[in-house]
């Protein structure tokens, strides 16, 4: 039974596959401010400058982490390079009481939630599995198993409903995931639960075009935002390299969720400019031409152009941000280098909330075993 060319005749998928569908954009790659009827956005110069600062700082934090990994200070790092606008735009659309469920790449969102960047390094340094307090900043721990967090986010949103915290002054949840994640059963089940429960949640998919080495075509043959309609809630594609559009679209969706209008799927159309992680080698599977074309859509450069053209930035503004970025980078590096190794007792801690005798016994045996070496040393 030899394998013949598998039948791949013309499929009957909607035409969207041909020409890319409309995507919400408020700031062109050239830095021109454009309007969108559904997404009017009032932003002051200061707000845009604040967003610019966020973008530059998170990129700098990311660079620093990559450098730390190269120098052996981190085991691995998942870079957000190229996705700063999607993350900062959506992150800044959240209120303090909203809850965010990230993947392992949402460093920009973490920044917007006020989490100390150094905290992010613990996981990648192998010091902990993610040691921050999710309740302190309403930013959940990083989830590595693809898609799992979308169900957690949906359940959390069901809790908001049961707390009666939906309505004006309500709360909502945002669940982050990637293009590859849309293939996981869990993500689709999350869509189903959210729709049936009409839960206050926004599904924020950063379509960075790649799932490690697999291009989007391996996951879907139609634009991802269209997935939502079939589940009974709206889907919208936004220019993920446009921080203003990402902000406006997420704001509107979050507000709708808070008011009880249910879920929205946002597909942030962006690009993973770096390797999947520091251990990945993209040259094996993608062309640099693609990278070059996306460089022209850089999320930071367009904001800078906008500020310059409009003369919105006072003299020294950009230099000051650069200086601050350098400072933040140094702080992160310092924190990383000074990060203490975990005590071996951490192996046995926090497995259970209540006593678990067999494990306590293992812990004691371990301690005795370790001590025996110390004794041996001393013996010498």
């Amino acid at each position: 039974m030899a394998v013949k060319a598998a039948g791949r005749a013309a499929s009957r998928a909607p035409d969207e596959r041909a020409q890319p569908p409309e995507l919400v954009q408020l700031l062109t790659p050239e830095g021109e401010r454009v309007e969108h009827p559904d997404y009017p956005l009032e932003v002051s110069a200061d707000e845009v400058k604040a967003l610019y600062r966020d973008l530059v700082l998170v990129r700098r934090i990311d660079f620093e982490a990559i450098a730390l990994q190269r120098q052996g200070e981190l085991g691995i790092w998942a870079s957000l390079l190229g996705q700063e606008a999607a993350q900062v735009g959506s992150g800044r659309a959240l209120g303090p009481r909203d809850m965010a469920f990230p993947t392992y790449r949402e460093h920009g969102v973490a920044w917007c939630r006020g989490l100390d960047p150094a905290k992010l390094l613990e996981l990648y340094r192998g010091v902990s599995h993610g040691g921050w307090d999710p309740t302190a900043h309403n930013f959940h721990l990083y989830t590595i198993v693809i898609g799992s967090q979308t169900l957690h986010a949906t359940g959390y949103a069901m809790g908001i409903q049961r707390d009666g915290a939906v309505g004006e002054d309500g709360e909502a949840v945002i669940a982050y995931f990637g293009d590859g994640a849309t293939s996981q059963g869990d993500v689709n089940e999350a869509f189903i639960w959210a729709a049936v429960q009409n839960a206050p949640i926004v599904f924020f998919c950063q379509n960075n075009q790649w799932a490690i080495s697999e291009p989007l075509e391996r996951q879907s043959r139609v634009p991802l935002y269209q997935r939502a309609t079939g589940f009974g809630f709206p889907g919208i594609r936004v220019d993920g390299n446009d921080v203003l559009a990402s902000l406006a679209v997420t704001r509107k969706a979050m507000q709708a969720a808070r008011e009880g209008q249910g879920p929205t799927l946002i597909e942030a159309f962006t690009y993973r400019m770096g390797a999947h992680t520091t251990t990945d080698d993209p040259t094996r599977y993608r062309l640099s031409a693609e990278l070059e074309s996306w460089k022209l859509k850089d999320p930071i450069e367009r904001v800078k152009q906008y500020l310059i053209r409009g003369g919105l930035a006072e003299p020294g503004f950009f230099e000051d941000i650069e200086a601050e970025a350098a400072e933040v980078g140094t702080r992160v590096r310092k924190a990383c280098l000074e990060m203490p190794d975990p005590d071996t007792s951490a192996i046995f801690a926090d497995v259970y909330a209540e006593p678990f005798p067999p494990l306590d016994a293992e812990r004691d045996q371990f301690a005795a075993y370790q001590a025996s070496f110390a004794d041996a040393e001393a013996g010498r």
Partner: protein
Amino acid sequence: MTALTLSRALNEGMRRAMEDDPRVLIMGEDVGKLGGVFRVTDGLQKDFGEDRVIDTPLAESGIVGTAIGLALRGYRPVCEIQFDGFVYPAFNQITAQLAKMRYRSLGKLSLPVTIRIPCGGGIGAVEHHSESPEALFVHTAGLRVVACGDPADAYTMIQQAVSSDDPVIFFEPKRRYWDKSEVDQAGGLAAALPLDRARTLVSGTDVTVLCYGPMVKTCAEAAVAAAEDGRSLEVIDLRSLAPLDTSAIFESVGRTGRCVVVHEASVTGGLGAEIAARVTEECFYRLEAPVLRVGGYSTPYPPAKLEEYFLPDLDRVLDAVDRTFAY
């Protein structure tokens, strides 16, 4: 004291838990109007509303995954998996998320989620409705695994499980759902035997018989039969499979010098293996015979017409007891 079926005792236990704590929720397939296919949640939606007793979409990963989210928001979900054989779609959420969240968060997050699983065979069901997957969860650190064997324990243990801040996999012996016996609903939880302790059901001197869930009744009957042959079985209902109440186990085997472990799950890689290994290590010089295991064979669960041959019964327990005396 009132006589309740095991199914009813669970129902009353959950009702009590829901009255005591408004954060307790029930979720699963058909748990609402229908009251579950075994009626364990009968009437709860009527009395506590659709927001607290949730008929979920038909997807087990979704049930456990959203329960985790609800727990993160401060709720205490009790999930019903309709049958043992349908817990596997939820295995990823249970193993990689539910069991590990506390560890991952360095103790900052608790997931007080109870997962109820009707387990075991003996009811003449079709494939996937008679399984005993407990060993899979016992091997997964971060979970408590318990099994109730009679109505009285069912009533208290379900409440203890719901009030535990650890995730609990709660096994219910489905073929015993209709067994009736006295339950003391007056006594509070404080007085009850802790969730992680075993209970000596029958005191004896010759052999220690360890069992749980559906096999408790079987082994108690075996003890009576054995007594007629002048053999004194000590029957211990383990109740907690993770953690194991090793002190109770070791104390008993230390006295009897013989031990038989009985469960419905396949012997290969079953809980009996862990118990045998621990008992042997701890009671090595006291053992007159190796710990023998009585359980399902190392095959998939057979069609209903054959289950009586597959499942451990009184005769197979006694046969194992005899064999321990052959050493």
